[in-house]
């Protein structure tokens, strides 16, 4: 009926221009974290010029790889409106397992550890889905579980890699002065980014569950499977992080869990991904991870007491969450 009333092609250039402008303004909002990153890096390098030297950047990049991998994994539960508090504990457990297994299993130790840690992540997902439990309760429980198990199997001390280190030594090398671990993290994040933008599950189901679970359910999305997959993937990413850590430290550390969890969540949120889920992507996670790394290294090179690190993470986390939070997604605050 109104076919004739529609403006033909004349209207479309204007519309594309409007759309482009809208996209640009969206970019403006996204630029906040990027500006923060550059500002922080600038500030640290003024106080400590060597920070931006080739050596400084190399250190920064290899430290960044750990937080990048953790944050990329943490993004998945967060994107569906959940959270995985056990990632730090799983990573620590992974480092212990790998350090213990490398001398005996050789190359097989790597897939064995990855499968074991991914299975622990899968367990998180199954508990949450089967018992309809809030993820922060379930994963606080498994956090305790796996921290304890790591302490038991390692006798509560660092486990040196006594053999088979050659298998993972490549991860601690450099290609053209760029740390291989950093390149590894970039490749892994690119793959995950591809899944999030190019596949139906990543681009549609995941975000739909995060934004409106009932609507996703009623559209035939297999919500339970999406959830379990997210936690299993978060487990896998804990395993990958453990791989990098063992390569860098030549040992497994059962007590490293605490120092890993907070930065991983802070990185996701500070990059501009809402803690309530349904938004964001890998580019934001990357920027967030880099911000956290700069803060971490900045505190180190400027000779500030490292105890301040956790204080800074905590403040950043609360501030960034407050800025990005989708309050309509939280019914009653408790």
């Amino acid at each position, binding site marked *: 009926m109104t076919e004739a009333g529609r403006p033909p092609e004349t209207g479309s250039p204007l519309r594309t221009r409007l759309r482009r402008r809208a996209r640009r303004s969206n970019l403006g909002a996204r630029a906040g974290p990027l500006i923060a990153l550059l500002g922080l890096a600038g500030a640290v390098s003024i106080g400590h010029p060597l920070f931006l030297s080739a050596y400084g950047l190399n250190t920064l990049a290899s430290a960044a790889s750990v937080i990048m991998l953790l944050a990329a994994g943490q993004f998945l539960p967060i994107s569906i409106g959940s959270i995985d508090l056990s990632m730090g504990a799983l990573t620590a457990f992974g480092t212990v397992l790998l350090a213990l297994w490398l001398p005996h299993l050789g190359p097989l130790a790597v897939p064995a550890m990855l499968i074991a840690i991914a299975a622990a992540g899968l367990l998180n997902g199954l508990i949450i889905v089967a018992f309809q439990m809030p993820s922060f309760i379930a994963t606080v429980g498994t956090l305790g579980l796996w921290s304890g198990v790591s302490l038991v199997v390692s006798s509560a001390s660092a486990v040196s890699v006594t053999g088979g280190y050659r298998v993972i030594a490549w991860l601690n090398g450099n290609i053209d002065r760029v740390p291989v671990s950093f390149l590894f993290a970039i490749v892994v994040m690119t793959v995950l980014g591809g899944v999030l933008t190019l596949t139906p599950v990543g681009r549609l189901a995941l975000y*739909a569950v995060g934004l409106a679970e009932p609507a996703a359910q009623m559209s*035939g999305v297999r919500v339970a499977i999406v959830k379990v997959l997210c936690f299993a993937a978060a487990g896998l990413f804990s395993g990958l992080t453990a791989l990098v850590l063992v390569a860098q430290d030549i040992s497994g550390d059962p007590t490293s869990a605490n120092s890993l969890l907070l930065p991983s969540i802070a990185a996701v949120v500070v990059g501009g991904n809402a803690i309530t889920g349904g938004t964001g992507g890998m580019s934001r996670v990357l920027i967030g991870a880099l911000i956290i790394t700069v803060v971490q290294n900045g505190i180190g090179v400027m000779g500030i007491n490292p105890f301040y690190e956790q204080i800074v993470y905590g403040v950043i986390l609360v501030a960034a969450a407050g800025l990005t939070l989708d309050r309509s997604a939280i019914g009653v605050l408790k």
Partner: protein
Amino acid sequence: MSETVLAVERLTKHFVETVALDEVTLALRAHEVLGLVGENGSGKSTLLKILGGVVRPDSGRILVRGQAVQFSGVADAIASGIGMVYQEQSLVPNITVAENILLGQEGSAVRWGWYNWKQLRQQASIALHQLGLDIDPMARTESLSFAERQMVEIAKVLFLENRRHVAPIILLDEPTSVLESKEIDTLFGQIRRLREVGSVVFVSHRLGEVLDVSDRIYVLRNGRCVGEREAKQSRHDDLYEMMIGRSPGQSYYHEESRLPFDEGRPVLSLDGLSARKRYSDVSFEIHAGEVLALTGLIGSGCESVCRTIFGAEPFERGLMRLEGVKISPGSPADAVAMGIGYVPAERRIEGVVGGMNVAANMILADPGVAARRGLLDFRRWRTLVAGWIERLRIKPASPRADVTALSGGNQQKVVLAKWLLRSNLKVLLLDHPARGLDVGAKTEVYALIRRLAQQGLAVLLLADSIDEAIGLSHSVVVMRDGLVSGRFSASPGRKPLEAEIIKCMT
């Protein structure tokens, strides 16, 4: 004529793209029961929420006893002597009736932080007696029936207003919607008692009740006040015509485009379907091209049957067949895979994913149509979505618009498109598809339903009104207390009367 206690002048309220209230002006007098009638989406609930301080108007004035007021919350409305009894109950279930009535207003019934139970009981009794209620103030609230709890709720509002020492103004939002006829009589008795002490605004979409209990009636349609009548001097049919904007017989259900369905091919058939406590022995068939309306009051089991077909609720006994093949979908995802689609009544919660754009919402149920070898094919996706936007005349015609920026009618079209673009869709369940839509959008949705039937889909309709059920369907199945209580053919010329269906419902 007695004095005006509450006046509303040119009150206007817009939601995203719809006008909920458009310059509504009305007055409530002392010791009067004022009826407010209108279809779903006519604005009566919005008006009530504004008067109760829940929603703020865009423009217009509210005068309470001649004083202009601006409510910034429920507490302000209460302070002005306006109390609201909500459709959904708001009592705390695990404390006593007396505690609920005095909750937050304990005053002298609390000393040194402790309840003075004697005082508490006394004060609650006063409020209960005022309404002539025989409810023990010391009973646990959850032990009361739904109707009793509603009475307590009224007593609570009354108690609150007694404290103010002004004649209370009490707003009742669809208080009868889930009551049985005997309970309705009791409620009406109470409303008449309330009239002795104050004034009452009574909202309902059931004309008979409103005529019964009100002194004066305002009719709302599409956010406008279209008429004011003394109840004694008005007839049911006149009000009805005012309410829906046409005479009862006239059709806006596109009767001319109804085709007979193919009686030889049942697409979906239920045979003795039962689920404990919800429904039992439900049987019917829907054929290709047939629209079957399933109607009944709240709690009759219609909604449950519909959700069972979609795999959202389990069933225990009986058979469900899709094109002759036995099925029992264990989840919505299973049902979708089998070719069943569902347009939920809760459009904003279960229908669309807010925060996602139109294009993503459309392919959510079957991303495969826009994918190739497991990856999204953006060109195919774009063409597909553009095609459906044009075919369903979705506005704004922008695939990238956040779906929540669309009006209700356009959101519903996106939900419909989500199912229509599936290649294997056989059955479409429509759960109140026109709820909350304005008349224009309603007719468009009705036209669309006709077209779906013409294309050979089997359509199950849970209608908003009996009128809609009769107008749109080929056959009507009525349920009461979990059982099928009536079956009617609704072919042109042999349509059942509204009264016949109501008889089966109650």
